[in-house]
Structure formats: C-alpha cells, structure tokens
C-alpha cells in the first residue's frame, strides 16, 4: 500500500471536515490523553522539542497551493517560539533539539511514522463519522522506540509540532467577497473556502507512546506568520494540557 502521508491536499481536506466538528460541536475537548497519562507525565522533567514541521502556503484564487519558503521559515520560528513559551509555564525544562547527521535518518523515520499516526488520530478519534471506539476509549498510539534519540539529547520525552497554514491571496479574498455580492442577487453564494490554519502538538514519552495530543484548526482567522496570531492559537492548545503535580 502506498500512502503519501505528506500530501498536503489530503491533509487540508481532512482538516476542512474536522473544522466543521470544531465549529458546530458544543466546545468539545480537543485533546487526547493516554490512559496512564497522570502517572507517566509526572515522570517527565526535560522533554526535547523536535524542529517543528510548518508549511505555509499561499492559496490562490483558483485553489492552487503555492508553498512559500520565506513564510515557512517565519511560521516555523513563530510556532516553535510560541510552543516553547507556552510549555515553559509547565513543570518542564524544555530543550529545542538540533538534528545532526548522526541521528537524521532515525528522526526522519520517526517523523514519517508520526505523520501517519497523526492522520490516524485525527480521523479515528476526532471525526464522528470515522471514530474507532476502542481508540477513543483507550487512546494508545506509538511512534516506536525513541531511546536512541532520548539518550543522545539527554531528554526523557519528545514533543512533536506540526503546522499548516493557507494564506489567501488578495485575488482569492476578492473572489470570496464577490461570491457574497453575487449571491445577494442570485440567491446562491458560490465562493472559494477560506484558508485553513492548523497546528498539532504531541508529547511522547520514553516508551514511544503518545501521552498527550492536541489539534487546533481555524478557517481564515489565524496566520502563523504573525507571532501574536500564532501564539494565541498555541496558547489555547497548550492551555488545555492537564495540570500536573511536579
């Protein structure tokens, strides 16, 4: 079976439907925790944060995603900084991990699996149509053994951060407005969707299992290139991290 888990369009498509849950459900809890979260998280003191994977696209009028390397760089810096600042409030000593050649392949392997795990979590523990009751009631997902990485960096847990942002071009925004205007006359509003902003964070302990996972998404209201906008989204997300006793 060949799955391109990096397909940004599949990811966006998934997020569009998840957004509908976030918008119309009655403020559902958006984070997921491992059954042994309480006892295991209390043992974590210095998690390492892997370099965040943030993609920021310019979304054109015609729906074409144009990956902007300059925006990706800014988005990545903002997300990383915002997560770091938000987690500093917790009883953790966070280290930002710098990947070198020695560990690069192992990390790529783990990140490839994490992408598949993250998509599976979103589909089967968030989306009502595709819920797997066993996974909802017993949230156990793993990225496999992480001791090699933990040993190298002297960390006792890993934080994964992923970000995705679509910034509508002026043309696309004009089309959205036009859709509303035309709709006033025809009675049917046809317009392109707003760009999606989404961030997910996962805390993985030495077993490789995800202790805590959270996802936040917004349609058109956020911008990862703007630190304040990014931080408000991240703070909302990390704010839901259960209080823990040190």
């Amino acid at each position, binding site marked *: 079976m060949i799955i391109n888990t990096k397909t940004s369009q599949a990811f966006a498509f998934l997020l569009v439907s998840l957004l509908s849950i976030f918008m119309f459900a009655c403020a559902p809890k958006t984070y997921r925790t491992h059954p042994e979260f309480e006892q295991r998280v209390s043992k974590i003191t210095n998690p390492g944060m892997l370099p965040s994977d943030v993609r920021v696209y310019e979304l054109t009028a015609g729906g074409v995603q144009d990956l902007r*390397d300059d925006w*990706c760089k800014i988005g990545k810096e903002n997300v990383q900084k915002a997560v770091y600042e938000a987690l500093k409030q917790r009883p953790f000593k966070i280290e930002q991990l710098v990947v070198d050649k020695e560990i690069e392949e192992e990390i790529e392997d783990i990140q490839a699996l994490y992408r598949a795990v993250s998509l599976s979590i979103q589909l089967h523990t968030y989306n009502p149509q595709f819920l797997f009751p066993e996974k909802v009631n017993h949230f156990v997902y793993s990225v496999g053994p992480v001791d090699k990485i933990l040993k190298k960096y002297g960390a006792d847990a890993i934080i994964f951060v992923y970000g995705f942002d679509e910034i509508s071009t002026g043309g696309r925004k004009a*089309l959205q407005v*036009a859709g509303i205007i035309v709709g006033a006359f025809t009675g049917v509003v046809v317009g392109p969707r707003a760009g999606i902003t989404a961030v997910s964070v996962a805390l993985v302990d030495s077993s490789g299992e995800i202790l805590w996972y959270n996802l936040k998404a917004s349609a058109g209201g956020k911008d990862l290139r703007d630190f304040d906008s990014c931080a408000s989204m991240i703070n909302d997300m990390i704010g839901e991290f259960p209080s823990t006793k040190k």
Partner: protein
Amino acid sequence: MKLKIILLILPIILFQIGCASTDLKPITTGNFAPETDERGIWYQVEEEQKALNRSGVLYTDKELEEYLNETARKLYPNSVLAQIPFNIHVIKNRQFNAFAYPNGHIYVHTGVLACMENEAQLATLLAHEMTHVTHRHAVKGFRNLKNKSAVLATLQVTFGGLGGGVGDLVSLLGTFGALASVYGYSRELETEADIEGFKLIKEAGYDTLESVKFFELLKRDIEEEEIKQAFFFGTHPRVQERIENYEDLIKSDNRKSAKSIINAEQFLAKTLKVKMDNIFLDLKAGRFKKARRAADNRRELYPNDAKVYYLLGKIETQERGDNGIERAINNYKKAISFDPSFPEPYRELGLIYLKQNNKGHATDFFKQYLSLSGETNDRAYVEEYLKQCKEGDKP
C-alpha cells in the same frame, strides 16, 4: 437582469485577481535570481528530492552517473553550468521517462536508458530536459496553472449561482480545458524545449539525425505499452508531431556541422549493466516482447553471456508460448554451458522437470542449485520439491 449584473462584476473580479506573468528570461541570459514563487517551488522540490533519495528508488552505478553527467556538461558552457549545477541521476523504473527539477537535478529512468542506442540519443534527452530547467518551465507552468484556475474559479463564482445548468456547463468545460493544457508541460513549453535542445546538441557536435531516432524509439515504446498519451515529455505535443518537428529542424538547419558524434561504443559499455537490470524489470512487468528484444540485442553483442540465456529461458517459461518449454530448456542449458557456477538455470530446469514428472532430472538439478546458491530465500521451496520427488508426489 441577474446576468447583466454578473457581467458587470466579472471584469472587476478578474482585475482584482490579476495574472502572474509567464514571461521569464532564461537562466542562460545571465544574472539569474529566482523569483518568490520560484523559490517556493525549489523549496518544495528539495523536500521531494530528499524523499526520493531515501526511498531506495535510485539506481546506483557511479560509473554510469559520471558518464551521464559528463555528457550533460558537453551541452552547456561553463558560464551556464556555474549558475545551474546540473546533476543527473538514474531511477529504477522500466518506463520510458525522464524529468527535471527546476534546481537542475534531472532523473532518468532505467527504462529510457535501456531503449537508447548511443550517446547522441542520450544527448537529445538531456538537452531537452536541461532546457526545461534553463528556460524556467516549472515556474512558467505553475503560473499558467494559477492563472487558468483563477479564471475558472472566477467563472464558477459568477456563473455558479445561475440556474439552468449554466454554471455546471461552464465549470465542466472550464475544468477540462484548464487541465488539458497544464497536464505535464504545455505544448508551447515542450516545443521550446525541443527547439532549444536541438540547438544544444547541434552545437555540441552530435549527429542530429539521432534525435529523430530517439523519438522513433519513444513512439515504439508507446505502441508496445499501449499508452494512450505519451508519458514521457508530457502529453503535448504528440510524438509523431515531434518527430516531424525534429525532421523540419534538421532540414531547415543549413549550417554544416564539423562533427557528427554518435559514440555508440562508449554508450553501450557504460549502459551494459543498466540495460541488463532493466530486462529483469520488463520481465517482472510481463513485458515479454520488450524483454526479449533487449535480451536478443545483448546476446548479439555478448554471445557467451550466461545471464542472457537464463533471461531468455525465463521469458519462454513465463510467456507460456507454443514450444516455449523446449526453447526454455535449450536456453537454460546454454547458460549452464557458459557458466556452470551460475545457480539459477539449474533451478529453472529442476522446476520444468518436476512439472513433467521427471523426478530424477528434477532432483539432480535442484541439488546442484542448492549447492551453488548458498543462502537463498527460496530454499524452503526447493527443499519441498526435493521432498516431493523423493516421496513420489506429483506437484
């Protein structure tokens, strides 16, 4: 009334959306600096390349790669190569294809190398792909896509609310029209790559007649693979048209070239291994005609090559043609005669005799296979066959 209002609004929206320019100077004109969206494409391409490098799909043959890169370097002056450091790689794939990333990394399938006959044909391919890079076709194609899809989206917004299926019809035609022209590179960009590529091979002293032969090979491949649209070089223009384009280019080019390089000998020496490996890929894909042709060509050049006879035997066995088994047996025996230490033909003969219920012969050949092959992941099968022969079971 509704229509009048929509037609009033439409030009305003189109003006707002704007159109990205597809008029870009080639890198060869000097002072190249990538534009914003071009940098975004390169960034994405680098991610794609990392994935490709990790995937195990690259064909490793250092000598072959060096030769391909050496040939590519003959096509451009150093001043251009300094701006775009071209890098040619090979991909394990039996299909007749090659593609270029805008950062100068070009990937050539084993399938296309296996079909080629000489360096002049290789130069035709490389010149074409390198032109896609130097003339920035990736960003032009991408801008074209953005422009067309923007227009389409505008039409959908303005007409989508109308009744009577008007919106549906527009969107149907619009989608088909937009996609048809952006699938692969557009006809215009492919033609530019053909014309500029032709100039390059001519300047480098290659025999331009070989460029026509190259497209003849592509045409043959399309017919054999029963491909409705040419996979290679995009879908436009159609291959016969391109053959005629090259013929016209040759006719209209009055300059006499001092050289007329074909360089078949060196090309065949450097592509010996990849051609053989690609025969195995064609065999796995059940493309027996192609595999047989390639194996026959190889046998002409290397009449004592045991592996070729083994392959010919496999083709006969798997194609299941009339009298195929007899021909298979002959080929396997020839393979053994040229290299008695090559294990695989023994195995195949063992299988043939097993199915013919000739247990004595089957046993002999299977035992020889096991003694020659050492650790092999099909040992369990062969041991099972030997057991069957001993117990007198029919397979």
